[in-house]
């Protein structure tokens, strides 16, 4: 099968600049349970968004599933917002909470 002649740019694939790291890591990113997202999907999203190995992603997915929520990372406000935005793109219920 021939390769496409015209590229179609995938959304969300542009390079993003890292925010300033000088802020205090005072915000938690929390993922909340729901009955609709597939467990494999949630694991995949954690791997993709945070770059985690599958075992770590599965651990947090199981926390969400069994305990109703999981604290994923503690970051500066900017980084926490970034992660919440990324998780929301995948339709996961994520919030940021001040530590």
């Amino acid at each position, binding site marked *: 099968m021939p390769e496409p002649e015209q590229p179609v740019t995938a959304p969300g694939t542009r390079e993003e600049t890292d925010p300033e790291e000088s802020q205090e890591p005072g915000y938690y990113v929390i993922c909340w349970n729901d009955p609709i997202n597939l467990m494999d999907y949630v694991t995949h999203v954690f791997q993709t968004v945070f770059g985690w190995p599958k075992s770590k992603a599965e651990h947090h997915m199981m926390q969400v599933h069994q305990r109703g929520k999981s604290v994923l990372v503690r970051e500066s406000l900017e980084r926490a917002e970034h992660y919440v935005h990324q998780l929301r793109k995948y339709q996961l219920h994520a*919030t940021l909470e001040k530590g």
Partner: protein
Amino acid sequence: MELFRRDKTHLIFKLDSMEKDLLVETVNLFPVTTENTQSVSKTGDPDELEENQALLDEAMAAHKQESKDWIKGILHNSTRLKFYQDAYHLWLRVEEIEPLLQILNDVRVGSWIQLGCPENVSELNMAEVSTDNARYAWAMEVSGAFEAFFLSTLNER
């Protein structure tokens, strides 16, 4: 439906006519979710939250429009989705699995919301399904099946 060919940068999926029609029908529903369904924080300062919520909603709306344009471009690009010999071939770059999963899951989650957020999604209460929302029951199931398929191909790496 099967993963026909893969290399480091590309994936080609083979679909029969019915599978192709189902995929097109499903992604054509996108976007199903609406903004403001979830607060950005459960505990933060209301004024700060309002600003953050507005930024999040704006970013999500822009992302959905971008995704809608992208999937439309894929489905209408004859070199991306093409009947070849005995089946349709869907040609994707490896990284394009991500926006495809996001679109399918928007349809799944949005359909679930339209159905009233039932707790038990594996055994829908038929009393909750009407002629008005039956298409969402269908879309929730079909989008989930496509998601599971694409995720399984990623796990084969």
